[in-house]
């Protein structure tokens, strides 16, 4: 079984609230849920919608086909009607879309009864639950968890009223609920907190603000210093200060804000100070589409910063991966004393999905911080030249009589400015040697689909879900197709690709950008060219259906 419900209207009409109540209720009824959000860069008006998809099998992406449209205005019907399935239902208030063949319900009337106009959408929720014959008490529990006092009560009355307005259509049984429901930004923040991040700073920027906001909301409880800074230039410099002083530190933004951190990224490379930075991508250049999605910052992140220094870039694939990878990023950053860049995007940051609860036992905090034993000779060498390129790190103030000096100029082992040619070469080599360790560290892309496929997809980050759905469907049809889904993307792991490549007839690059950046990277690192590219750059995320269709039309 699988259903897909769209709730649409203007910004400010409360789509998010109702979507949230609906997805949580469905989750607690034991279903897998995937909620997709489409919203404009404005506070009121315009057209926004949420699509709540649910099933008894795990979901990885959204779907275009709709079973129910809950329209908060007539525009919603006009815009999405064409996607409604044959037996789909449109519900709306009596006063909307008069004369149209839709299911009119007295939602506003119900809200008037409880004297709170805002809850008319909750009445709609009641109606939707009734369509599936789901028990009301679960929704009431959700409402009580999300609201309190009078507001909870009026919402409960509204949901009950809505429940009465309509009959059961598709009776569903509830199941055992073992999952959590979470979005990508929350997952990243949870990963950071689990990893012991004690300093997060940032400047608001859609779609990355959710990370900042979640961290701030747990600041007190978890003892995390969360700073809204004056600009993004300050952000990374500040995080580096905090990290130098010894706490795990992170900052993040979207592409435009990240662009302002580029100089400090190079500083991180030079002072070999660990830091984690997330770029939650949105369509660019410049301001672009603030509330929409794209994957066009890959090459930018790999090469950001003047000069040469090792870094790691990790693309997050879904909210489960996002959690573990974020936590891992802190370990790698500290192990190699480098910046680790995480890449997310608006799609991943905003969609919510049911996944199994995080296993906090799997999160290991490995800090690689030394004590007095690291001091050889009289004065501590922060940049001691070692075989691995990594120098033992002590923290300022933590070893009596020893000081820690880091320097953005080229420096000697103690951190003092040097202009020597030999020391320069030694220091460049030292820093670059970390890449060798890092190459051992990187994980090969996930493989999904038929083993040793004739058609091999390469993709990265958030397209994972849609690609997975498409591959599974095609495999179901007997088509020999698989996909490598890159998470660790710089340095680029190429072993699996080289293993599979000899049998591959078509190599298909699937990305949310206009130039095929992963393809360019594979050309560079593996001297292999993709035979096909499926690119999308209209700001809307690929769905599994779309990839399936385009593969059929353009490749297979």
């Amino acid at each position, binding site marked *: 079984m699988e259903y897909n419900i769209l709730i649409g209207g203007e910004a400010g009409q409360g789509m998010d609230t109702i979507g949230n109540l609906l997805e949580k209720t469905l*989750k607690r009824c034991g279903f897998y849920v995937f909620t997709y959000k489409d919203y404009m860069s404005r506070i009121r008006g315009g057209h926004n919608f949420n699509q709540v998809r649910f099933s008894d099998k795990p979901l990885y992406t959204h779907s275009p086909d709709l079973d129910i449209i809950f329209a908060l205005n007539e525009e919603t019907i006009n815009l999405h009607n064409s996607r409604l399935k044959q037996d789909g239902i449109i519900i709306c208030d009596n006063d909307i879309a008069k004369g149209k063949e839709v299911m009119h319900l007295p939602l506003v009337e119900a809200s008037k009864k409880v004297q709170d106009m805002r809850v008319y959408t909750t009445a709609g929720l009641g109606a939707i639950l009734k369509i599936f014959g789901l028990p009301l008490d679960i929704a009431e529990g959700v409402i009580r968890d999300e609201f309190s006092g009078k507001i909870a009560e009026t919402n409960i009355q509204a949901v009950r009223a809505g429940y009465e307005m309509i009959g059961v259509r598709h009776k569903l049984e509830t199941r055992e609920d073992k999952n*959590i429901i979470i979005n990508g930004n*929350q997952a990243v923040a*949870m990963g950071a*907190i*689990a*990893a*012991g991040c*004690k*300093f997060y*700073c940032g400047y608001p920027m859609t779609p990355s603000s959710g990370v900042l906001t979640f961290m701030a909301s*747990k*600041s*007190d409880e*978890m*003892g995390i*210093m969360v*700073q809204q*800074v*004056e600009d993004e*230039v*300050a952000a990374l*410099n*500040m*995080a*580096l*200060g905090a*990290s*130098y*002083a*010894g*706490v795990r*530190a992170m900052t993040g933004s979207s592409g435009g804000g990240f662009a302002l951190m580029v*100089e400090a990224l190079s*500083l991180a490379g030079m*002072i070999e100070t660990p830091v984690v930075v997330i770029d939650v991508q949105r369509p660019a250049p410049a301001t672009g589409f603030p509330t929409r999605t794209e994957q066009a910052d890959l090459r930018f992140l790999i090469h950001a910063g003047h000069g040469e220094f090792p870094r790691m870039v990790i693309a997050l694939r879904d909210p489960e991966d996002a959690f573990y990878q974020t*936590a891992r990023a802190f370990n790698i950053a500290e192990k190699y004393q480098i910046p680790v860049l995480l890449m997310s995007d608006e799609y991943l940051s905003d969609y919510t999905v049911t996944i199994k609860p*995080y296993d*906090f036992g799997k999160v*290991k*905090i490995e800090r690689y911080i030394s004590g007095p034993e690291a001091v050889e000779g*009289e*004065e501590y060498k922060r940049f001691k030249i070692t075989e691995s390129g990594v120098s033992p790190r002590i*923290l*300022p*103030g*933590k*070893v*009596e*009589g020893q*000081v*820690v*000096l*880091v*320097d*953005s100029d080229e420096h000697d082992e*103690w*951190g*003092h*400015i040097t202009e020597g040619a030999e020391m320069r070469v030694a220091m460049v080599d030292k820093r670059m040697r970390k890449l060798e360790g890092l190459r051992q560290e990187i994980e090969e892309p996930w493989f999904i689909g038929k083993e040793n496929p004739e058609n091999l997809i390469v993709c990265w980050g958030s397209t994972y879900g849609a690609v997975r759905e498409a591959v599974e469907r095609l495999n179901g049809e007997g088509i020999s197709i698989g996909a490598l889904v890159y998470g660790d993307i710089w340095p680029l792991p190429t072993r699996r690709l080289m293993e599979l490549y000899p049998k591959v007839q078509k190599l298909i690059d699937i990305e949310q950008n206009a130039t095929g950046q992963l393809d360019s990277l594979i050309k560079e690192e593996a001297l292999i060219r993709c035979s096909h590219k499926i690119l999308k750059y209209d700001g809307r995320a690929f769905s599994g259906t779309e990839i399936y269709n385009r593969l059929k039309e353009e490749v297979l």
Partner: protein
Amino acid sequence: MTTKYEYKLYDQPAWCPGCGNYMIRTALKQALEELGLEPHQVVISSGIGQAAKMPHYIKVNGFNGLHGRALPPAIGIKLANKDLKVIVESGDGDSYGEGGNHFIHTIRHNIDIAHFVHDNQIYGLTKGQASPTTAMGQHTTLQFDGVKAEPLNPVALALTMGAGFVARGFSGDTPHLVNLMKEAIMYKGYALVDIFQPCVVWNRVNTFAWYKQRVYHLPDGYDYTNREEAMKKAMEFGDKIPIGILYKVEKEPYEDRFDFIKNGPPLVDRELNPKDVEKLLRDFV
């Protein structure tokens, strides 16, 4: 006496002979000594410029970062480890030019940092271009026809932004400067000391003699808690220029506005345990 602040292996400043920076270094060492601070208890954060080379010439912890970015790391450091004494050593270009935005916003936050600006009214390291404090009309190696913008008054700006400690010093008056530095370091909150520092190579206007002729100590009875008075003194920048603490009042430092910082160990000392985070899953069920 102050040898504990000397690096064994590196102690020859790359400053020009006769530069005002030397005396600032002497004053700072003396201030630290008199405050009984050990090298490992102190951090100097700096940007890039002649002034900003200070961390190499005083043995305390040092973060010699990017041009214009001395303050943000200092904030990060202080918030991560409140036990450290955090000092910022910076130039007028570094703090008021490239770093101007950090300057004004750091003040608003009142983080416990002592900010020492070596104000030579010129870009020293890059060979003599105008800085934000160079006088209008002054000819430089870039402003061939004279500077065409009005200089920024750092102390007036800091006062307007709400700084609780604002002072002016002169590198040619070390005992006085030592005292200002000690006060600034001990002040709980953001403290600015704008220090006149003659650049003997590039600034042929604001020389030692120029400052010597003009600076005077604020009179004994001067009430540094009066903001309007302070603003008047701040605006005195002509034939007579007052040095000393222009303004000083108590203000809650930023860190103390957070219970979890104020009433707990420094963040750097906290135990990290992923299992403690499990409870946050409550938001997602």
